[in-house]
């Protein structure tokens, strides 16, 4: 690629499921276009790079660094800081890095409770000696008291939402980033691009909540069917992939830019469209909501509770 200045890019995998790394590959042939404009200088998951390689780079020498996954260990934190130093633009890639995602729900529990469950109480765990790995025996990076988002550790220049970022979101983000833009993505909610939007009735009213399996899907807007769909409170851009597969939106793209908090927005919208009912029925319908945090704060718990759950005062 003579004559053309190649952008140096890096990708790192913090605490996450690995889906983000795969999502970059899911660009398919588009990734070749990317490689025409950029060279990969660090991507441990895909190629052989060592931390020393990164340490050796000049500060600010990476044009765009993508960090996927959240910050759960000392090591995650260290690399986040290192990448920050080495790069011009640091991007939180995917929901974990941006908001904490599903693994951020761990902030509802203490580190001890988590270890207890994972190493001792889990039904599929066989650990007769009750061993809990610790840094005493091995040199292991410390498991931090709480999970953090990238922004809670270092300054972040851009965010790519999604769990993992869907293809259209990614293409759009990469194009913008390669042009040096850090603001991108849609700023309306998902209903805007939802294939079911025309089936909305004039007045949406909910008198009973159904979980997905409790109701035969008639193909209409999920919300109008009484099935909680986070679409109205969730940023568009994914081209409603889930809904196209007949699955209601769970909100991985996060809130639209104007909204302060996705969960509460959706809750107040839902509360507003409940049908006419007496207090008792109201209580019943509210109690029928299973797993409120997991429904409305599935992705943003860590962002909202960086210090974990407030302990009861009693």
């Amino acid at each position, binding site marked *: 690629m003579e004559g053309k200045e190649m952008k140096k890019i890096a990708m790192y995998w913090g605490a996450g499921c690995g889906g983000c790394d795969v999502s970059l590959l899911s660009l398919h042939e588009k990734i070749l276009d990317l490689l025409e404009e950029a060279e990969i200088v660090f991507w441990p998951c895909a190629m052989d790079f060592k931390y020393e390689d990164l340490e050796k780079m000049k500060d600010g020498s990476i044009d765009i660094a993508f960090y996927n996954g959240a910050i759960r260990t000392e090591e995650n934190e260290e690399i986040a800081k290192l990448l920050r130093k080495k790069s011009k633009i640091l991007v939180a890639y995917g929901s974990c890095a941006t908001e904490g995602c599903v693994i951020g729900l761990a902030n509802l529990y203490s580190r001890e409770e988590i270890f207890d469950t994972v190493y001792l109480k889990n039904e599929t765990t066989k650990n007769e000696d009750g061993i809990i790995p610790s840094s005493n025996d091995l040199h292991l990076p410390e498991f931090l008291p709480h999970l953090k988002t990238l922004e809670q550790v270092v300054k972040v220049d851009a965010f790519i939402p999604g769990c993992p970022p869907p293809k259209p979101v990614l293409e759009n983000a990469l194009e913008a980033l390669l042009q040096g833009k850090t603001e991108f993505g849609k*700023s*309306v*909610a*998902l*209903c*805007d691009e939802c294939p079911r*939007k*025309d089936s*909305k*009735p*004039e*007045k*949406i*009213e909910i008198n009973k909540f159904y979980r997905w399996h409790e109701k035969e899907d008639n193909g209409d807007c999920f*919300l109008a069917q009484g099935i909680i769909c986070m*679409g*109205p*409170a969730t940023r*568009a851009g994914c081209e409603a992939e889930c809904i196209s597969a007949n699955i209601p939106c769970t909100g991985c793209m996060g809130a*639209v830019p*104007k*909204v*302060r908090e996705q969960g509460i*927005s*959706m809750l*107040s*919208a839902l*509360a*507003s*469209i409940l049908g006419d009912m007496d207090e008792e029925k109201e209580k019943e319908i509210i109690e029928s909501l299973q797993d409120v945090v997991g429904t409305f704060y599935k992705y943003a718990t860590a962002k909202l509770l960086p210090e974990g759950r407030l302990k009861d005062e009693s």
Partner: protein
Amino acid sequence: MARRIGVFVCHCGINIAGTVDVERVARELEKQPGVVFATTYQYMCSDPGQNLIKQKIEEENLDAVVVAACSPAMHEETFRGVCREYFNEYRCEMANIREQCSWVHDGEEATEKAIKIVKATVEKLRDNEDLMPILVPVEKKCLIIGGGIAGIQAALDIADAGYKVILVEKEPSIGGRMAQLSETFPTLDCSQCILTPKMVAVARHPNIKLLTYSEVLEISGFVGNFHVKILKKPRYVDEDACTVCGDCEEVCPVIVANEFEMERKPRKAIYIPFPQAVPSTYTLDREACLGLAPLTCSQCKEVCEANAIDYDMQPKIIEEDVGAIIVATGYDLYDKNKLVEYGYGEDDDIITSLEFERMLSASGPTGGKIIKPSTGKEPKKVVFIQCAGSRDKQHMPYCSSICCMYTAKHALLYKHHVPDGEAYIFYIDIRATGKGYEEFIERVMEEERINYIRGKVAKIYRDGDKIVVCGVDTLTGRKVEVQADLVVLAMAIVGKEEAVKIAKKLKVAVDDGNFFKESHPKLKPVEALTRGIYFAGCAQAPKDIPSAVAQASAAASKVLSIFSKDKLEKDPLIAVVDEEHCSACGICVSVCPYGAMMKMENGKARCIEALCEGCGTCAAACPSSNIEMRNYKDEQIVKMVEVVI
């Protein structure tokens, strides 16, 4: 441009200053950025108070004003009026430190809260936009629901002033309860005689469209621009063709109870409720009729020489645009079956006051004779029980206001009919506050020698031919026991049961007795909270005919004042949708209680200015935070919260 804000703290006599340290409020506020002047005054709303504001606006070159005083519902208009001479009136805000502070808190706490309230108002004011009122056109036509004396009076007043009226009455005739009464206290004029000329005037008035046997189905819109759908039920008789010859009634084989006669007299399936009914026509009661088809009966149709009977008549939906609405749906008596303690329903000789009215009427079930229903004989001892169901925590807690008066009337008329009879009245106290009312009671007590017994009835039971009424005369402390032939219960007055449904359609409130709730119990007694809707007569509270008529004229004058302008000014504090960022989720459209959010072709929402009441429901519900309330923008609210916490 930074605002130059003046803060004016009102003492409201001791209403505020008695609790809140108003001086300290002013001194604290002076420290707020942007506040260039703060002071206190005895009564800000007084002329000198208003002048003080004007003077300071000029001297201090103020361009925005906060008046810390009572509720904006009281004086916002006063102070905005003062500021209007100098700058846009939306740069004037009131901070309510009376209702929301001095009246509900004490001491230091009150002063602290007052300071916070005023600071928050200053923060809000900083970002207020200059606004102009929205102008909406007025449809100069009035809908009146209910054709009792109140509805009739209001209709005549408005029609006489030259405006169109649609009068909707659900029964076959207008007239309401007054048509059922015999003579009226305190002057004892014949009720029908004074009522029927007004009913005829309604029927003849070119400006009144009378829709009887009709009900309001739907109401939408807002002051000046309501849209109503009215159902005109088929009466199967052509109102104009019917000559009221009564041939049909004669041949009709079906006999049912007559509602107008409190079910104490029969009527046929084809009937006219009373001879002076307006419109003057028979009505076929479909429920009672044998079949509405030539094969099943059709005797009435065969005898009708005027050819007025039409079995194929269909319900009609009539749509009208009106600018104002008066609700005059009147009252019912409290359900007699709920008064188990008086054994009503079980005993034929215990009747309600309205049944007694019908008995007194020459056209009533007994032809004007007072009888003991079980035997048909003249009752020689009658007990009247006041407050039956009223002023009673088990039933209706309020005073029904007219029972003392009509019971006195009943006792008097009874004595006129049965001069050798004895009348007893059990009462708690006598409330006779109208003009000439006390004199009327005195006359009844003295001239007619009615036995007034102050005390509640403890027990009623039947003993052979008699009904025994036991109680204690609390004035003498003696037990009283009367062997009565007839007992008349002055039943509590309650609002119509369907008032609740009508209220829902109108988006107005009703209170415990199903009475429509006025906007202010003293200062806005005929207005609903929703503009353009008014109440008249017993629909609002129990009252006598003179009060019902006066209230009807008051409501009419309110309507006329709306009709006196071509355009109405409307508060511009409405919802605004950022259409670009609207996802068309449809939530706001679903929640707006005024139908002001409209779904556009592309599914996105748009607020119809004229319909929006600025309630903010949509803004709270929009999951995209995409709706802003004018002068209550999110940033404003956040800033207000920040200064108070």
